[in-house]
């Protein structure tokens, strides 16, 4: 299951959907809003998604993970909206009979989701500047476009 959520995520409820006595391993990844990025103090984030396409791409990523790794269950939910420091931005959970597959698949899911899903992040800095991450163009500061 891959989902975009405008509501806060509930990791315990998400993990309960993975309960499975054939599984010996459950690996989860949580992405938290961090107070810095490449040396810049960060105060808050906005996440925005093109949800229909993100969910289609997410379903493809899940299918790839199932084909590559011997996993049992897999869930990825990405938050959108205004997030504060420490907030949960993305939750990925994978179960498998053995832990190697669970670790590898969890890593694959978050790496591919971040690389491919149409989800964007705007950082709000302590100096009240903002930037859409990875959207800088030649002449902009680093890889930020400050607006």
């Amino acid at each position, binding site marked *: 299951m891959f989902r975009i959520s405008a509501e806060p995520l509930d990791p315990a409820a998400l993990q309960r959907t993975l309960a499975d006595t054939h599984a010996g391993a459950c690996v989860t990844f949580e992405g938290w809003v961090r107070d810095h990025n490449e040396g810049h103090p960060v105060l808050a984030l906005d996440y925005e998604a093109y949800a229909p396409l993100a969910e289609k791409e997410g379903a493809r990523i899940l299918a790839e993970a199932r084909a590559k790794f011997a996993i049992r269950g897999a869930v990825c939910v990405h938050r959108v909206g205004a997030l504060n420091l420490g907030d949960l931005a993305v939750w990925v959970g994978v179960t498998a009979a053995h832990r190697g597959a669970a670790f590898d698949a969890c890593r694959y899911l978050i790496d591919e989701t971040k690389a491919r899903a*149409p989800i964007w992040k705007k950082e709000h800095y302590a100096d009240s500047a903002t930037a859409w991450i990875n959207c800088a163009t030649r002449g902009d500061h680093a890889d930020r476009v400050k607006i």
Partner: protein
Amino acid sequence: MITVHIQYFAILREQRGLARETLATPAPTAVALYEELRARHGFTLPPDRVRAAINEEFVAWDTPLREGQSVVFIPPVAGG
């Protein structure tokens, strides 16, 4: 001229100043439409940093546009 429905996200939404519009365009392809809008609105991202989606699927830049389609331009994603 065809009529297409465009949604803007993230930096393109901010640079366009709105989230969606319906417009008539002579652009024969997705990339031609992006260049038309980029010239008009001053989008900073060149086409090689943007992807196109039509009717909720990624498409190649040279994909022909058809009447009534939903078009989204995808700026670089959050990554990291």
